[in-house]
């Protein structure tokens, strides 16, 4: 509670002290002598008032307001008394040499008003008393460069605003185009970061950048002035030199230590004077101020239309020139055609520092009479800058056929297209000769043949894949291969045996090999290591029926006996081979 009451007392004291004193208003400039295109500030200071001052700025010759007012307030507290100070700062630029007088300005503080004192600034021409151009001394300056200085009304002049700099520039933004009374201006689009080009100007090398390019179209004749371009740029300026004084060493003279910093500065280009000439006389009657080079076209959506049906008439003006200020010629329709409010569109862009594109107007016409209708060509006159003469262009005659809507009203009516109108003049083409190939009926598209080809193809592919897969399996597995080939090899041996008939000494051995080899291959046992007993036990392990096992055993033993004691078994060769065949077949079924 005590703290709050103390704060209240302090506040009352402060307010009392501020309110009690009578305010003082002063005005000052930061330079009494400036050069043309230089800027200076005019500062209004108000002391002893809490209200923000309002100023009615007087008209000042020879000066242009560059920026402002910038407001600032400060409070000082001296010997227990607080005083408030408010400043308003305006930045002016000197436009021409002479004496500029800033008349007393009226400053309003609440209900009271105060007058500032009259100030005088001497403006000297930039090259006065200087052997060299002033620009040489300035690290950064802005120049306006016009493409021409003498033009006709309606002829464009392009002005390039070029920045010359010896120091770093951080931004190249220009917010506002200069005032140009008597001109219609259009800015040429460019990238926000312009390309820097090195250039020597007055013997000094600068980096230059085009900040803006503006096309100006004069709308009246005489000596016209395009005001200077004003802009605020962030540039590199040298910082304080304290470092170098402290460390007087070349090492610290390096730019790294020199302490450059960013600073915002105002820049102003030179004004541009243009001499605008009147267009030559006599002017054609239908000339409406177009300057450049133009073409005019007019066409109907369709040339054949049903009566009371709508058809569009398009008039297109294309080319280059002062599009913005020109009007398309009006279309005057005969009485028997109703014309509805036209639709307008345009597509204009800047190319090669001139406006080019087209302006289009579409009228909706509704013919009320039948027959062949034709309208006068649409004419357009312009002043050709290349030849210095007036040129009249014509669209050519516009014609259309209006037909009667015969019979009942169709469901949807419309005009015929250009292709259809061309077709109308044609006739139906003649029949074809009888030699054409026939096919049988609307037979099914996907016939048996169609499917057969597809199935055959798929089968062939799958067959090949299957075969290759099997081959690969066999290549990788010797036992499997042996087992698969067992029957083929056994049959081969049988064929061999048949050839041996009559020379029976080798026959029992071959037949033995045939059976043993087959069983061995199928049961995956080494052929050489097999004797009859082993084979029989292997067959038993495989759960082969006892009958076949017994038969095999009996047969193999008989063969063994015959091998070692020829004639011991009384059987002829053919019978032996037949028995072997039968046994092989039986074994083939179970193994």
């Amino acid at each position, binding site marked *: 509670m005590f703290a709050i009451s103390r704060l209240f007392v302090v506040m009352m004291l402060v307010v009392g002290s501020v309110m009690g004193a009578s305010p003082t208003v002063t005005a000052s400039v930061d330079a009494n002598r400036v050069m043309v295109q230089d800027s200076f500030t005019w500062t209004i200071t108000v002391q002893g008032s809490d209200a923000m001052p309002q100023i009615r700025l007087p008209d000042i010759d020879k000066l242009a307001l560059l920026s402002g007012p910038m407001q600032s307030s400060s409070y000082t507290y001296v010997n227990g008394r607080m005083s408030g100070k408010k400043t308003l700062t305006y930045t002016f630029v000197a436009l021409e040499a002479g004496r500029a007088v800033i008349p007393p300005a009226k400053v309003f503080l609440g209900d009271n008003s105060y007058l500032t004192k009259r100030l005088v600034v001497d403006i000297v021409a930039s090259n006065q008393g200087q052997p060299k151009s002033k620009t040489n001394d300035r690290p950064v300056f802005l120049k306006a460069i016009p493409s021409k200085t003498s033009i006709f009304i309606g002829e464009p002049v392009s002005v390039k605003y070029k920045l010359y700099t010896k120091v770093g520039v951080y931004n190249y933004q220009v917010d506002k185009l200069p005032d140009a009374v008597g001109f219609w201006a259009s800015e040429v689009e460019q990238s926000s970061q312009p390309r820097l080009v090195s250039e020597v100007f007055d013997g000094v090398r600068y980096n230059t950048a085009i900040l803006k390019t503006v096309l100006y179209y004069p709308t009246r004749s005489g000596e016209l002035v395009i005001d200077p371009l004003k802009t605020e740029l962030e540039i590199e300026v040298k910082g304080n030199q304290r470092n170098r004084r402290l460390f007087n060493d070349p090492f610290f003279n390096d730019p790294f230590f020199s302490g450059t910093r960013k600073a915002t500065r105002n820049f102003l280009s030179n004004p541009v004077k243009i001499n605008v000439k009147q267009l030559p006389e006599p002017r054609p009657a239908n000339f409406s101020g177009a300057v450049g080079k133009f073409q005019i076209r007019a066409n109907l959506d369709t040339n054949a239309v049903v009566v009371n049906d709508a058809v569009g008439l398009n008039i297109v003006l294309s080319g280059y020139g002062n599009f913005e200020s020109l009007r398309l010629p009006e279309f005057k329709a005969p009485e028997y055609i109703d014309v509805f409010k036209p639709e307008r569109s345009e597509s204009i862009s800047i190319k090669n520092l001139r406006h080019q594109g087209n302006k289009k107007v579409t009228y909706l016409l509704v013919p009320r009479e039948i027959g062949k209708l034709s309208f006068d060509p649409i004419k357009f006159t312009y002043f050709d800058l290349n030849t210095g003469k007036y040129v009249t262009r014509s669209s050519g005659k516009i014609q259309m056929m209006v037909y009667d809507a015969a*019979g*009942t009203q*169709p*469901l*949807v*009516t*419309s005009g*015929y297209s250009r292709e*259809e109108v061309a*077709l*109308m003049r*044609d*006739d*139906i*083409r*003649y*029949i*074809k*000769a*009888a*030699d*054409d*190939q*026939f*096919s*049988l*009926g*609307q037979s099914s*598209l*996907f016939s048996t043949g*169609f499917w057969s*080809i*597809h199935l055959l*193809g*798929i089968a*062939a*592919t799958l067959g*090949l*894949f299957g075969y*290759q897969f099997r081959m690969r399996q066999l290549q990788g597995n010797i036992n499997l291969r042996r087992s698969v080939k067992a029957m083929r090899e056994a049959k081969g041996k049988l064929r061999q045996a048949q050839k041996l008939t009559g020379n029976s000494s080798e026959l029992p051995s071959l037949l033995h090999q045939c059976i043993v080899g087959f069983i061995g291959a199928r049961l995956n046992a080494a052929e050489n290591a097999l004797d009859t007993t082993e084979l029989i036990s292997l067959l038993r392990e495989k759960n082969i029926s006892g009958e076949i096992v017994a038969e095999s055993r009996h047969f193999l033993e008989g063969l063994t006996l015959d091998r070692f004691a020829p004639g011991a078994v009384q059987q002829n060769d053919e019978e032996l081979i037949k028995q072997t065949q039968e046994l092989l077949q039986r074994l083939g079924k179970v193994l």
Partner: protein
Amino acid sequence: MRRLTIILLAGVLSLSTAWSVDFESLMFSGNKLYEQGNFDKAIAEYEKIIRADGVSPALYYNLGCAYFSLEDYGQAILNFEKARQLAPRDPDIQHNLEFTKLFLKDRFDLPEPMPLVEWFSTLWRSLSLTELRFLETVLFILMILSLIAYRLLMDQYSGRAFLMVSALTGILFILSMGWLWNRASADQDKMAVLLVSEANISSAPVPGSSTLFVIHKGTTAEILNTTDSWYEIRLLDGKTGWILHEAVGIY
């Protein structure tokens, strides 16, 4: 076996010769009648071929011309459209179809299609179903052959080339198959032409239902649905409604 093949081949050949001679003479007499200005009889001759299951683009074209001469624009459009399905790139068919359309009462104001869409649509219709089937089969055979060649020459350098060929022909084959299937489903009896001079389009497939709008002879429409005696149709401008089977021809 060889004898059987020869007999079969001879049978097929004799059969084909038999019908073409017959169709050709009918077509010839139809053309003769047309030349004499006897369009009714020419139509009767041409239709004999159709009843005998004979089909050719020239037949439908000539039939369309005969109907056009009799100012039956509905039948003319129907037959020109059928001819165009069989020979989509024939300029005469295209011309006569467009020319006949000039005589129709119902006309539709349609927005210009985008160039790409128009190009695709032209390409889509540029081949007949028979040509498409041939293309699809050829691509299939090429794909299979190159696949087989690849499998056989897999271990050799040239095998890779065959793999590339089989992949390429495989993609083309799939595309052509899609094309064929889509066209086959879109081309078969999906469009209707009004054959009577005027027809009421009903709101429902029920006798006595309210009339939505009226169409005139020769107007074509897409068939959306079918009942026993009604088709649901959609006109070029998007209007839909029901119409009786008898009033329209289908292609």
